[in-house]
C-alpha cells in the first residue's frame, strides 16, 4: 500500500476505527496519522463512538477457571522477564537450566520463592533452618496463590502436552490434589532459578511430589522429603527419591500425618533413611487446601 493522502484517510476513517480495513491499509492510515500536520479530527470523532458498540452487549461471565489460567500465564511471563537476571545472579546448573527453557512447561518457570526479598538480596545471611516466621508467611501465601494458578493453567490445558518426566510427575501431583480433602504445596528454594516443584498431601497423609532443577544424586546420596506440622515440632521423614541428569525428582507415594497447614521440605542426604534432616533445605513450601476446597 502506497502512502495515503489526507483525503484517502478521511475516506477510510469509519472503516479504520471499526477495524474493517485490511491490516496493510490500517497500517497505512496509522502511518499517515502519525506524521500528518492535520489533526484529522474526523478520525477521533468517529472513533469515539466505537467503544459504545460493546456496551450494547449483555455481560457474560467467563468460566471461573479462566481467571487462574490468565494469572498463571501472567506469572509465567513475569518469570521469563526476570529469568535473564536470575541466570546472571544464580550459579550452578539449576540456574542455567532455568534460563534456557523459558518456553518450557508452565510450572517450570513459575517458582514461588519462600522468601522473595531474601532471594534477591545476595548478601542476606542464610535463613534459619525452618521456614516459619513473618517473611515465610508472606511467601507461603504467594505460593498458595501460585498453586491455584498452576492448577488452573493445567485445567485449562495451558501446560503444553509433553511426555517429559516432570510433566508426567506434575500430572500425578494434580490428580492427587484433586481428591477431596487434599492440600497442595508449591516448593521453592531461596535461590533464583533453584529447585522448585509441587506436592499434594492427600487426606490420608499420602504425599505425591514432583520437583525439578535438582542436582543429580551420586553414590549413596538421596533426596529426602520431610513434613512438619508446626514451628516447634520435629520434621518427619515422608519419603526419598534419587535424581538423574534431568534434575527431576518424583515421590509417588510418600506417607506422613495429614494435619492442615503442614510444611513440606526437601533435603539432600548422604545416606538413605535419615531421621533428622541434613541442612540446608533444598526447597520448601507450605500446604494449603487444594483450590476445589478453597473456592
Amino acid at each position: 500500500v502506497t502512502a495515503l493522502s489526507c483525503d484517502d484517510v478521511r475516506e477510510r476513517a469509519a472503516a479504520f476505527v471499526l477495524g474493517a480495513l485490511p491490516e496493510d491499509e490500517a497500517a497505512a492510515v496509522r502511518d499517515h496519522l502519525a506524521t500528518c500536520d492535520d489533526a484529522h479530527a474526523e478520525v477521533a470523532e468517529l472513533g469515539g463512538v466505537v467503544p459504545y458498540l460493546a456496551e450494547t452487549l449483555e455481560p457474560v461471565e467467563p468460566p471461573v477457571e479462566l481467571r487462574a489460567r490468565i494469572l498463571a500465564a501472567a506469572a509465567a511471563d513475569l518469570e521469563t522477564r526476570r529469568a535473564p537476571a536470575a541466570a546472571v545472579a544464580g550459579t550452578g546448573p539449576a540456574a542455567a537450566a532455568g534460563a534456557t527453557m523459558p518456553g518450557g512447561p508452565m510450572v517450570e518457570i513459575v517458582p514461588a520463592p519462600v522468601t522473595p526479598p531474601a532471594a534477591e538480596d545476595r548478601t542476606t545471611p542464610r535463613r534459619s533452618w525452618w521456614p516459619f516466621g513473618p517473611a515465610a508467611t508472606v511467601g507461603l501465601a504467594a505460593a498458595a496463590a501460585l498453586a491455584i494458578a498452576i492448577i488452573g493453567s493445567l485445567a485449562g490445558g495451558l501446560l503444553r502436552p509433553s511426555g517429559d518426566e516432570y510433566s508426567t510427575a506434575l500430572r500425578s501431583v494434580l490428580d492427587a490434589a484433586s481428591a477431596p480433602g487434599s492440600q497442595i504445596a508449591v516448593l521453592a528454594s531461596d535461590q533464583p532459578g533453584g529447585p522448585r516443584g509441587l506436592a499434594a498431601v492427600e487426606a490420608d497423609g499420602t504425599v505425591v511430589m514432583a520437583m525439578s532443577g535438582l542436582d543429580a544424586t551420586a553414590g549413596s546420596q538421596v533426596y529426602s522429603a520431610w513434613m512438619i506440622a508446626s514451628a516447634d515440632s520435629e520434621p518427619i521423614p515422608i519419603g526419598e527419591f534419587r535424581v538423574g541428569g534431568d534434575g527431576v525428582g518424583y515421590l509417588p507415594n510418600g506417607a506422613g500425618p495429614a494435619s492442615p497447614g503442614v510444611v513440606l521440605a526437601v533435603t539432600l542426604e548422604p545416606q538413605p533413611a535419615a531421621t533428622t534432616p541434613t541442612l540446608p533445605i533444598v526447597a520448601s513450601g507450605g500446604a494449603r487446601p487444594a483450590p476445589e476446597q478453597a473456592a
Partner: protein
Amino acid sequence: MSEPTASLSRRIPTADDAADRAALARVAAGELEALEILYDRYRAMAFAIALRITGDRTAAEDVLQDAFLGAWRHADRYVDGRGSVKTWLLSIVHHRAIDAVRRRRPTSELPEPEAPGAMPTALVLPDVFAEVAGRLDADAVRTALAALPEPQREALELAYFGGLSQTEVAARTGAPLGTVKSRMRLGLLSMRRLLGGEEAIVSEEPT
C-alpha cells in the same frame, strides 16, 4: 498520531477511571493483584465481546487470555487521555477476537498466526479514541443503536461484531463498496448524535 482535539475529548474522567488507571500502573509494575482487579472488573464485558464475535466459548476464552496477557505485557503503552482504561482493555479484546475469526476464514487478509505471546503490535495496541459522550448506561446505548436506520446499523454490526472488512460487508449485503463506506460513516455519526440526545442522520445514500 496527533492528540485528539480538546473539543472532542469531552469525556469526563470518573472515579472508576482513576481507580482503573491506578490499577493499570500497578499492572505495568508487574503486580499480579492489579491484573486480577482489572480482570474481575471487566471479565464479563470482555467475555461478552469475545463470545459475540467468535461465537465459540473456547475461542472466546483464548481471546480473553491473549488480550489480558497483552494488557499485562504492554500496560505501559496505555496513553492517558486517549480513551479510558476500560475502552483500552475492551479494544484489545475486540482486536484479538476479530483477529481470531479472520484467521478462521479462508479469505484471511492477515499474516499467519505468530507464536503465542509474539503478538503483532497493532493487535496489542489497538486504535483507541476517547469516548465522545462520557459513561452511559447500556440501555441508552442499545436504544441509540436500535434507532439507527437499518442499513447503517447492519454495516456497523457486520464490521464491529462480525469482523468483516468493508469489502466483505459489501459482498455480504450486496451493496456497492462506496455505499458501505458511507453507511459506516453515517452510522457512527448518527450513533454519536443519538448518544447526545439528537436524532439520527437519515441521508440519501450515494450509489
